[in-house]
């Protein structure tokens, strides 16, 4: 009975120490485990200069320009700051205006991020096209209704 309690004690102490150690490690690592930087971090110069890094955010609607020679230009935004991106290559299926995107590359001297890889980041929402359509319409209607209600005022 005693040996059993002792082992249980060792086990609990071990787990607590392990938990504390890993908590400290992950606290210290902090954002270094992040896969990408946001446009705000780019604007605040928190990104490595002259070094390859990943830029993540939403593709600004209306900003996609398909130039000659397969080069695509678009803006990546986090609704606070915006970074212009240039990319030559094939874009993934889910690449769309207003969608999440992660580009890997480096900052050019002209402030344009030159990407050599672009990945699409999708969200955790899944629904049928009909539902998505209805939601979109409901959203539009809501805006219209609000506009109508505001009119008499």
């Amino acid at each position, binding site marked *: 009975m005693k040996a*059993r309690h002792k*082992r*249980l004690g060792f*086990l609990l102490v*071990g*787990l607590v120490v*392990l*938990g504390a150690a*890993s908590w400290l490690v*992950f606290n210290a690592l902090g*954002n270094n*485990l*992040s*896969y*990408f*930087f*946001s446009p705000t971090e780019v604007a605040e110069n928190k990104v490595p200069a002259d070094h390859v890094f990943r830029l*993540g955010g939403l593709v600004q609607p209306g900003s996609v320009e398909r130039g000659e020679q397969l080069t695509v230009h678009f803006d990546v935004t986090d609704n606070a700051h915006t970074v212009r991106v240039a990319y030559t290559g094939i*874009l*993934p*299926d*889910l*690449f769309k205006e207003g969608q999440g995107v*992660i580009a890997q590359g480096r900052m050019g001297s002209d402030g344009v991020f030159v990407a050599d*890889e*672009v*990945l*699409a*980041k*999708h*969200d*955790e*929402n*899944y*629904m*049928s*096209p*009909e*539902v*998505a*359509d209805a939601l979109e319409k409901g959203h539009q209607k809501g805006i219209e209704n609000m506009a109508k209600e505001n009119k008499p005022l």
Partner: protein
Amino acid sequence: MSGRLSFYRFSSPAAFYPLAGAIGKVSALIAVVLLAIGLYMSFFVAPTDYKQGEGYRIIFIHVPSAWMSMFIYLVMAFWAGIGLVFNTRLSSMMAQALAPTGAIMTFIALWTGAFWGKPMWGAWWVWDARLTSELILFFLYIGFIALQGSIDDTRRADRAGAVLLLVGVVNIPIIYFSVKWWNTLHQGATVSVTEGSSMSTIMLQAMLIMTFAFWAYSVAVAMYRVRSIILEREKDTRWVSELPEVRR
């Protein structure tokens, strides 16, 4: 008092052996039925996704296998901890029986993740926090199996394996919360305890049925495997030599 007695009764391998057979049989039946329903719902009832088209149907095996990969690890760690503290032989055998199934579930999660990531993200694999920590989980399973296999003395093998399992438990919350704590390419949780789910009801139902199917499958396979492990470890005992399947 009697509850305590019955608990101890089934902690003996001889008493658990027939019980494991019964649980295994029932679970296998449940797994087959649920898999049939789940697969039918996954392909014929659940609607097409508005953004990912038919490609999203991978979710119906990706998420259940990923959940099971984490859940099985926790169950193994629980049994390993019990075995370490109370020196019960059966709990170590349970941990051992679950390991291959856990490794397979982890592999399925990684494999289907790659086959989903390629068309949607544009990459088979990225080193973001979610994917990397799930890969570490796979290595923990492989490491546990290899470590147990490499030590001849079963008691010492159980102990070494249990310590590895308990240390590796740190990885589970990291996998689970990685999409919340860091910027990852992997999207956030579709189903969460605190915020509910962000998918249509029929999709969610299909996914939950597939999850229960995978769960029943894991229980069934682990129960049948633990019977073999009991036989292997107790081969010199009298009760094993008197089993009908041995005597014939």
